[in-house]
């Protein structure tokens, strides 16, 4: 029997979309409720702007406050800081793994470094390096490097002994062993560290921009707050959330590209 087959949405895919749609629907409903409540002044309109005001302010922000440029500035600084943590952190982790003595001596120091609020010393770096992007990237780098080192160490140590033995049975040199066996095997854990470090780096970038008024989205939020431009402030906070989503999508895409996801 010929004839076109009818395309029926399978119940499975609808069920799968259900929750996601519910999530979005809830957000929309919440926004509508908020709009109504604030317009009716049930919620103090000075404290909470209406969602429509927030969205409208975006246009103003793009035109007057250079929102797009700031977005790329913040994102760029975060990516550079993250890249630096990777380039510096993984070799340090490998060094600690290779020389057990170094590891025993300094592993505790790195854990302490991670726990302590390093970014608190930012005024000093500002005085030393200047009120510019370099300071921001430096602070973000310092904030984010801890997890990278620790996870690199953990990943390299956790490689299955059988893999190492196979490599040794092929007569691989030390360097070859690292590049061809240990690093690839440790990649998933290393990437967990990179993601943790990225989170701290982004926190550092936006926090530093907020506190030192150098530029980028963090500074914008600070300025808008001081001008009591609450709708604009909300809108730019949403933009920062967008930056972090963007940023982490890039990191996860890199992870997939390197084949670290199993």
């Amino acid at each position, binding site marked *: 029997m010929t004839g076109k087959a009818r395309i029926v949405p399978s119940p499975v895919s609808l069920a799968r979309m259900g*929750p996601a749609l519910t999530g979005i629907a809830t957000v929309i409903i919440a926004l509508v409720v908020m709009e109504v409540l604030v317009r009716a002044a049930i919620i103090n309109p000075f404290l909470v702007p209406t969602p429509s005001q927030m969205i409208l302010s975006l246009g103003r922000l793009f035109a007057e406050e250079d929102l797009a440029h700031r977005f790329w500035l913040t994102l760029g600084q975060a990516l550079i800081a993250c890249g630096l943590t990777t380039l510096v952190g993984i070799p340090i982790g490998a060094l600690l793994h290779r020389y057990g*003595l170094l590891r025993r001596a300094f592993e505790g120091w790195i854990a302490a470094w991670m726990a302590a609020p390093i970014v608190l010393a930012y005024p000093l770096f500002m005085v*030393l390096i200047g009120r510019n992007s370099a300071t921001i990237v430096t602070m973000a780098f310092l904030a984010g490097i801890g997890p990278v080192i620790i996870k690199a160490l953990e990943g390299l140590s956790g490689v299955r002994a059988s893999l190492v033995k196979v490599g040794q049975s092929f007569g691989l040199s030390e360097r070859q062993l690292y590049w061809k066996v240990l690093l690839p095997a440790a990649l998933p854990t290393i990437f967990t560290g990179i993601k943790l470090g990225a989170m701290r780096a*982004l926190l550092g970038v936006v926090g530093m921009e*907020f506190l030192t008024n150098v530029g980028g989205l963090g500074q914008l939020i600070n300025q808008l707050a001081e001008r009591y431009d609450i709708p604009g402030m909300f809108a730019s906070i949403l933009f*920062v959330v967008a930056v972090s989503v963007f940023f982490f999508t890039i990191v996860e895409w890199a992870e997939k590209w390197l084949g670290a996801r199993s």
Partner: protein
Amino acid sequence: MTALAQSNTSAKTALQIGATAVILVVWEVMSRSGLFYQDVIPSIVEIIRSIVNILAGSEFYRNLGVTAYELLVALVIGVSAGTVVGMCLGTSRFLSQAYERYFYYLGTTPKIVFFPLLITWFGIGAGSKIAMGSLAFFLPVVLSVSAGVRGIDPTLIKVGRSFNAGMLDMARKVYLPAIKPSLFNGFRLGAAYAVVSVLLAETKMSNSGIGFMISDAFMRFQMPRMYAILIIIFLFVAILDSIFVRFLRSRDPALANF
């Protein structure tokens, strides 16, 4: 201790002492070299003098009390709210798929950007700092607890159900004990962010607390004092963290795999 172990330990200690000595020497050289603007890198003697002064005075402890109070309240609010929400998300696949991603997005956002908002809502006193800290605790705990609940061995849940346990009992007696590792890890993650957030918030806008002390010292260009406070706080936090990790590891060696 075997001879090998003893020599290993002494080698390690020697290395640590050596590294510390190198850092101190380089610092002192830089300080006296005149390369930097006066007092940006103060001499170690000055710094130690400041440390002693600060620890001897009462002002430090008063401010420490303020900050500790803010952090503690934030801890209670953030962790309990986070656990409840996390358990809801973890037990219901529907809720998790609908809403968890928003918590994830919020979680990766630097919490400091919410600070102006919190000031507007809670004032410039302790309230906004507590709110900051609560938020910083809340989000990692939600995500960790939710993942932890999903990872519970189904057998445990079935046992609970077979006893006809109500929701509260299930939560208290089955879920909570089973997710302890995730909870502690989430707490530890949240604690690091909370400490940074609360201290930075105090630096920005406050008239008490450790963050304020640091900002105040910097404003008056009392650099040795600022370094002294920073060093004391860093050591304090690092020691607390290592105590916490040791406590966790003594309960269960697999925990605190950070």
